């Protein structure tokens, strides 16, 4: 009974993935004939090759690969910086309560609800004034800012569950603000770091809006390339290439999920739940 339900649900969840993979392995004629659920009669990896290396956007026909490396170049520093800052925030909020801290935090939480569209325009102005517009640094900054509310919440809640006495002990031992952060708190926060990394990697990797608005074509992340490929309107949509491109784009976050899903659940339990 339980298993039956679960298996049915699992199938529902798997269908889209199945369809994506199957479609990406078919040739165009076969797709037009038919059934999206049927496995390919003649599997071909051509769509994958095309999506990765040959699909065109305008005059650039190097597929997703350029976007892939851009995404890496955007994601890695953004994830690191945003987690670093958010964890310090969370730590300061949980352990070094100072006047007004809770107020700023509340503002931050409300900020999490503001649609990004509201921020796009003023952000352009801000970046322009900072001279960061169009640079990778600017984009990293944007991701850091918009990732801050939820990450800060996670870290704050997590650090609040660590025993206060640990923090006191460290102070008696003569450790300062940063010492406690780096030498006591950080080593203890693996589970929540996993959660944060997963959330940020997927969030930033999958981001489209900021990637397209705050960068220039040479820095376009993979999602933008994907959009370019998928939304290019010619007569026949190359669904197989689109699907291959879609899978390729989702591969990195998926991989991270599959590798660290266990820790994710544990970390969520540690950080998010004990609100």
């Amino acid at each position, binding site marked *: 009974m339980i298993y039956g339900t679960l298996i049915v649900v699992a199938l529902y969840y798997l269908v889209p993935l199945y369809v994506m993979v199957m479609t990406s392995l078919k040739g165009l004629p076969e797709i037009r004939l038919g059934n999206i659920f049927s496995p390919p009669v003649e599997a071909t990896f051509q769509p994958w090759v095309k999506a990765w290396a040959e699909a065109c956007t305008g005059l650039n026909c190097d597929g997703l690969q350029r976007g892939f490396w851009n995404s890496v170049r955007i994601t890695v520093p953004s994830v690191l910086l945003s987690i670093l800052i958010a964890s310090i925030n969370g730590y300061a909020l949980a352990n070094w309560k100072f006047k007004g801290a809770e107020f700023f935090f509340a503002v931050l939480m409300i900020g999490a609800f503001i649609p990004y569209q509201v921020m796009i325009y003023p952000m*352009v102005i801000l970046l322009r004034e900072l001279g960061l517009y169009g640079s990778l640094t600017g984009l990293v900054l944007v991701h850091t800012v918009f990732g801050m509310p939820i990450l800060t919440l996670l870290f704050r809640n997590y650090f609040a569950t660590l025993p206060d006495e640990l923090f006191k002990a460290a102070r008696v031992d003569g450790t300062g603000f940063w010492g406690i952060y780096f030498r006591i708190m950080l080593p203890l926060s693996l589970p929540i770091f996993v959660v944060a990394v997963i959330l940020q990697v997927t969030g930033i990797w999958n981001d489209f809006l900021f990637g397209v*608005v705050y960068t220039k*074509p040479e820095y376009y992340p993979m999602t933008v390339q994907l959009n370019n*490929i998928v*939304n290019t309107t010619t007569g026949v949509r190359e669904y197989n290439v689109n699907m291959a491109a879609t899978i390729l784009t989702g591969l990195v976050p998926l991989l991270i999920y599959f590798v660290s899903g266990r820790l994710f659940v544990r970390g969520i339990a540690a950080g998010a739940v004990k609100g």
Partner: protein
Amino acid sequence: EEVEVTHWWTSGGEAAAVAEFAKAFDATGNKWVDGAIAGSGSTARPVMVSRITGGDPMGATQFNHGQQAQELVEAGLMRSLENVASEDGWRDIVHPSSILESCEIDGEIYCVPVNIHSQLWLWLSNDAFEKAGIEVPADWNAFVEAAPALREAGIQPLVIGQQPWQASLVLQNVVAAIAGPEIYAKIFNEKDVEAVNGPEMEKAFAALETARELAAGSNVQEWNQATTMVINGEAGGQVMGDWAQGEFAVAEKVAGEDYTCLPGLGLADIVSTGGDAFYFPAIEDPEITAAQEELARVMISPEAQVAFNLKKGSMPVRGDVDLDAANDCMRKGLDILANGTVVDGLDQVLSADAGNQLADLMIQFFNQPDMSVDDVKEGLIGILEYDS
């Protein structure tokens, strides 16, 4: 010098057309750095505007003719091409002149028009009519009469995609072709609210209602899917701009044989002059400035015009070039451009805001059988009033 050019031409034919510009520009010893952004104006334009206002401008960028870039120009973010234009006598060579006028702000020219797209076409599938056992209609009225036969044969008489602007095209067509170019100009150029209630418009609105009936049951999203239905004979006809031709070409269909194109719904020889233009953001670097001028010249040069427009399926902006290779439909367009009536495209005369609101209004009209013509009138008047 490297010049980054942003545009939203990413489909096969479009990209090939752009490549012509790139080739010609590279031949001058500069380098065209392609910055294509897919997803049409809605995705690409904010990026372009953001980059220009954000202080990281590209060398040149595509906009539609008309009002889209006006504020950027007013804010001093765009460079004037006046010296190039007057030197090369653009005002003499560009035809129709309204195209260049759209680039003119306070007497200076700020953009290079590169092509003309007419939106006022009705595309018919010869196959479909053959299947229904009737002759291919010669104009809108005949088309309306043929509709029941098409229905009977299981063919969708008129196909309109669900993108709002497609519905807007139908309105433009009926106003220009049925109410007439004068009314069209009164309404859209002059925002004359009275004209909307005029007797000519009654007929146009009646045609609009008919179109809604004919389009009932059409169930596609995108314009090219609709075109594909026409290509395959699943639909009798589609109201679409001349870019539809690209689709027919890709499907290796021949004008006149496989499909028929009727400008001005076949009722009047009339084209509109929407199109694309390139703008050049103001950049300090003199070398880039020079390259920008070079690019502007290349784009308007007869050779590039021919090469580009052949691939793009649009009409050149200068009357002095000859498109020998143009097919049947394009010929018709060129002829009308030379001799017939030309009306301004909506992009040229309406703000983007008004244009999109109009499109939203029309798609609602097409999707809601109970929405009356009076509602459309009212909406249209509201939009025109705000825009004037």
